[in-house]
Structures are given as C-alpha cells and as structure tokens.
C-alpha cells in the first residue's frame, strides 16, 4: 500500500500530512493517558504493535500475480482505538521510509492516512457496531482485522485516483484501475490475516482477560463467555 517517494504531487503530500498530523497528536495524547492510567496496557501495546511490525514486513503473493503485505492493524484498533494505532503505524512507516525506501518522507502523511487512520477507522466502526450485540467476539475480531486491512488498500487507491484521474472516465475510472491492483490483490491476504489475528486474540483473551476488561474492549460477560468456549 506504500505510495512511493516522488509519486504523489507535493500538493497532495501536503493535504495528507495536514489530515494525518492532528490524528497523530490525538493518538500520542491518548497513548500517554492510557499508559498513565494502567501500566499493564504496555505489554498489550507491545503485542498489538509487534504484529503491525511483523505483518507489514511480509510480502505475500496473491491471486493477481503480484505481492502485497497485510497490515496487522486490527488488534491494536480493537484494543486501543484508531488514533493510538495511527501512532504505531507512523513508527513502522517511518522505519520503512528511512531504511527500506518503501514509501518516503513526503508521502508519509498519505501512507499514514491509509494504513494508520482510514483502515483502522473502518475496522473501529465495525467494532463499535458489533461490540454490544450478541455477535460472537471472534467473529467481531475477524471482521475488524480483515476490514482494517482491506480499507487500507481501498484508501491507497482513492489517494492515487484523486491525484491521477484518468483522461477518459476521470476519478472513477482511475479508482477502479487502482482498486484492481491494490484491493483485489488484498482480498485473500485480508481473509488470512483476519483468521490468524483472531487466533492471536483468543490467546490474549485466555492469558490476560483482566486487561481487556479494564480497557473495556468487550464487556466482562462477553469475555467470560468467549473464554468458556476456549
């Protein structure tokens, strides 16, 4: 999902930086608040952030004959919300910009918006919608993690289509073309990511249910019900 350095006009780089910066500031503020309230949230942040580091480094082949990488943002989104997730993603994307020439400093704002903000926000929307319903916790986690991944790539397509509308068909035509490259490639990856991260969440639930209850990730009743299924 990385937009490469130099491939986005400076005006668009600026716009996406302006969108990303307030979200990052809010994320840093929330992170400080969460850690001040409960230091035991730190190991959970380590695990959820760790999966963003791992999964975003894996370039996996897909049905379209090209490779792409999962994002791993779903677990952090469920545990800490989209803004803190944006901060963790910004760290990963900065590392990749500086040391791997994947992305770049000028396009970092655009890449943070897709992977760290819109993807997690889409997942968070689904989480908020399903959190207090009778839908099984594991189904919720699967949907959040898979959709956070998918929407990252939909957003990258949107960012590029806005900057490069096609001569015939304009933005819509360009968006479909970019979706064909980014989003279609991502479908099987998002499904596998969703299943694997749901399994990881099960182990967090088994080992540290108390921190999930304190962070109000799910209600105590739902967490106890899910634990009894394991």
């Amino acid at each position, binding site marked *: 999902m990385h937009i490469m350095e130099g491939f986005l006009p400076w005006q668009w780089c600026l716009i996406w930086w302006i969108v990303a910066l307030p979200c990052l500031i809010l994320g840093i503020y929330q992170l400080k608040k969460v850690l001040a309230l409960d230091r035991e949230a730190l190991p*959970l942040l380590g695990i959820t952030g760790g999966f963003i580091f791992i999964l975003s480094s894996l370039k996996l082949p897909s*049905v379209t*004959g090209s*490779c792409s990488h999962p994002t791993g943002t779903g677990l952090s989104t469920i545990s800490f919300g989209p803004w803190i997730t944006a901060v963790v993603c910004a760290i990963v994307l900065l590392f990749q910009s500086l*040391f791997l020439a994947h992305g770049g400093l*000028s396009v970092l704002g655009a890449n943070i918006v897709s992977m760290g903000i819109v993807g997690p926000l889409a997942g968070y929307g689904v989480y908020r919608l399903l959190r207090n319903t009778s839908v099984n916790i594991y189904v919720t986690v699967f949907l959040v993690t898979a959709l956070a991944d998918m929407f990252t790539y939909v957003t990258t397509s949107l960012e590029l289509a806005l900057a490069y509308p096609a001569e015939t068909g304009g933005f819509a035509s360009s968006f479909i073309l970019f979706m064909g490259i980014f989003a279609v490639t991502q479908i099987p990856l998002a499904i*596998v990511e969703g*299943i694997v991260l749901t*399994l990881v969440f099960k182990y967090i639930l088994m080992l540290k249910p108390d921190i999930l209850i304190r962070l109000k990730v799910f209600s105590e009743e739902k967490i106890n019900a899910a634990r009894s*299924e394991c």
Partner: protein
Amino acid sequence: MAYKYTLELLSGIAIVAFCAMFLYTSATMSGAEFAGSDNVGSGLIAKLSGIPLENFQPLISQWEPPSGEIESCLFALQAAVGGILVGGVFGFWFGQARGRTAE
C-alpha cells in the same frame, strides 16, 4: 469445549489454502512475476500521467538499500523487532499464568 481448537484448525486451513492458491496461480498464470503491488501501482501512475517512470524523482531524497540482500535483511530486522515484542510479552504472560497455577 467442542469448539476448543476451531480457530487453530481454521488458521491451519487458511494458511494451507493460501499456499495452494499461490502454487496454482504461479503454475497457471503466464507472466505472473509476483512483483510488489506498490511497483505495479507506480507503473499505472506513469501510464495515467503520461510521465515516464524514470522521470519520477523523490521530493525528499532518501537512502536506498544498496542491494536486494540488504533490503531483505532490513525487512527481516523489522519482523524480528515485532517477533521479539510478541514473543517476549506472550512468554511473560505464560510465565505469570503458570505462576498463578502453581500457587
């Protein structure tokens, strides 16, 4: 309890299916190079804008890994950082859980 290992089973099936899909795609899709979608996307940008790919220059100059091997090494380093975090915390939590059981 009947569904105790359902997620483990589903994860295993998903990973095997994913590998099978790759083998099928690479065997049947002629010309599949499995290049990064970022690079394919950059190619489409060049096509849509009419600007040759080599004319896109970084707005902010950046360091590039001098070889594919070093790039792979740095990607592995990134994964290792994540692995250490995940393994360390899960190990810590498993230890705590075992300690509670022993008490």
